[in-house]
């Protein structure tokens, strides 16, 4: 494991850093002119979503960082306490813009688990397909996005174009472009349209070719390597301390993947192994995401091959207009492209949920971990570290 390798491989002189005050606060007396307070604010073109980081700089080194969230707070958990279970279905999707399908699946799964409904087999396959396609379109945006932070623009252009093709496939299957509203408590809302498999194969072919291009463009690009190797290093010991999950943990060598550890839907019928890297810096994390991309392509192909032809899509649930779910609580988790994504649902036997709480991976990555990583990083790397952790602010404040 490489220690943080500084380009000038000399320790920055600590003199200009503020000493730590007794209560852990750094005594930065702003008027001393040594420090500049800068807001990597909500209006920054680089921020994915709205999250502000209050940086205190001395020269180009960041001395202290505080993440401010709350720009996208809509109080989902409060709204969902006022809505019937079926009405929570379209509301809970809007919690995370990058991957709406995981919210749908988790709400459906917790409702089914609490009320003991069995989902038909065809619906399970369709759900896995939709979840994998959601992971695909999210990775298509973040893998080249990492290069985009270093202004390698064309990678992003290709990636977002291909993501758009995947969105078209979503549109045919589910009827919606980004918010699919497809996985409903009890099953799914439609079978595969005809000719879907052929079009899917076409798009996957284009994405294979894209992965080859990205490899040439990003992964053996001297400047990209210089900018990402050794930056934003996560010590393996932090993984448990900070609750790091998903690709960021796998980049630090931990073999943790909810799809493998707690198999849900039909993941136990698909054979794949967990991707992992060892030196956990930005380069390793983007490498992990590229491997995940390749893995998702392969998974989708497997699903398409093994999927049964016909089958009914929805179990018979009680009348949704007054569906009383028996009292109880459950925690249901799934693996989104950013890590473990879980719903903690409590129902009190009435027609409305008592409490639904989303455990998003960015909750720890963006707030506590990012503040730790940014200390003595360079101002130019703030944005690339944030994107490498794949933070999605609406998940933090819901």
């Amino acid at each position, binding site marked *: 494991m490489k220690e943080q390798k500084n380009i000038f491989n000399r320790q920055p002189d600590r003199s200009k850093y503020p000493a730590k005050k007794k209560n852990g606060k750094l005594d930065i007396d702003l008027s001393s002119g040594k420090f500049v*307070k800068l807001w990597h604010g909500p*209006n920054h*073109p680089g921020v994915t979503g*709205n999250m502000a980081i209050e940086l205190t700089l001395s020269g180009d080194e960041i001395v202290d960082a505080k993440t401010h969230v709350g720009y996208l707070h809509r109080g989902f958990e409060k709204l969902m306490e006022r809505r019937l279970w079926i009405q929570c279905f379209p509301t809970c999707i809007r919690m995370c*813009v990058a991957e709406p399908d995981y919210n749908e699946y988790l709400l459906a799964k917790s409702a089914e688990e609490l009320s003991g409904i069995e989902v038909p087999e065809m619906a399970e396959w369709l759900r896995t397909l939709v979840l994998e396609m959601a992971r695909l379109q999210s990775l298509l*945006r973040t893998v080249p996005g990492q290069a985009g932070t270093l202004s390698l623009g064309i990678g992003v252009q290709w990636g*977002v174009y291909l993501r758009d093709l995947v969105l078209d496939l979503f549109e045919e299957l589910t009827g919606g*472009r980004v918010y699919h509203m497809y996985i409903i408590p009890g099953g799914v809302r439609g079978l595969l349209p005809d000719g879907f498999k052929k079009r899917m194969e076409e798009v996957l072919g284009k994405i294979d070719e894209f992965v080859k291009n990205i490899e040439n463009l990003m992964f053996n690009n001297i400047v990209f390597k210089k900018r990402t190797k050794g930056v934003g290093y996560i010590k393996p010991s932090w993984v448990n301390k900070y609750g790091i999950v998903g690709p960021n943990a796998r980049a630090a060598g931990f073999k943790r993947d909810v799809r493998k550890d707690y198999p849900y839907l039909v993941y136990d019928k698909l054979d794949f192994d967990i991707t992992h890297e060892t030196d956990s810096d930005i380069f390793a994390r983007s490498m992990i995401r590229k491997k995940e991309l390749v893995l998702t392509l392969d998974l989708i192909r497997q699903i398409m091959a093994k999927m049964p032809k016909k089958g009914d899509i929805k179990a018979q649930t009680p009348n949704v207009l007054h569906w009383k779910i028996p009292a109880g609580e459950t925690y249901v988790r799934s693996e989104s492209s950013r890590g473990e994504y879980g719903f903690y649902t409590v129902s009190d036997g009435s027609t409305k949920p008592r409490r639904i709480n989303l455990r998003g991976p960015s909750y720890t990555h963006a707030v506590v971990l990012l503040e730790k990583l940014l200390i003595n990083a360079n101002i130019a790397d703030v944005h690339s570290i944030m994107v490498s952790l794949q933070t999605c602010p609406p998940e933090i404040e819901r």
Partner: protein
Amino acid sequence: MTNENKNHEKFLHEENKIREVKAPDGSIIKVDPLNDYFLDDRPEIKKPKTNKIVEKFLNWSRAESLWVLGFGTGCGSIEIPPLMTPRFDAFRFGVAMRPTPRQSNVFIISGYLAVKTLKRVIRSYEQMQGPKYVLALGSCTINGGMYWDSYNTINRLDHFIPVDVYVAGCMPRPEALLAGFMKLKERIKAGRGEGANEYAEKFDWYKANQKKIINDWNMPDYNW
């Protein structure tokens, strides 16, 4: 943004509080940071130029090169990257993303507006220059959308900043967004894009609405 907001004292950071400072010549100066920071003069109404032809030509140029402020306020901002990339290339229509409010003249409000974002939106809107236009996406700006009963999102956008064009859709598609741009161009060329003047005329009404919602008027405390 005067200081007399009713529950204002509760949320004032210490460095913004009114304080007395001893001047070098010994006299005491009362410093009220919030007033000094923000010039409180009202935006003047700038009437378009007299003769029609020049105004028409300028309007044409304003319509052809729309510089959008890259501030994704809501969930619709996920539909803006596809707009800028190969699939629905908006550069062809003269649309370009500008990072700073100073240089941009179209403000895309891409969905719901939390109160905290609303404060930044107002501040960015006031920083924008000259003939500025607002494109409101999605149903959240028209009548509150799905968060009509949320305590933290505003219901109607036209109460806070003058809006030029609304695009329907719960996250309108990029094509609908482009149609929105076309409509905006039409409106500018027809000379109806006077949002800035409208903001100046009804300044007090807008300010009153904004004050009713936002209680914490502290601005990030730059230290110089």
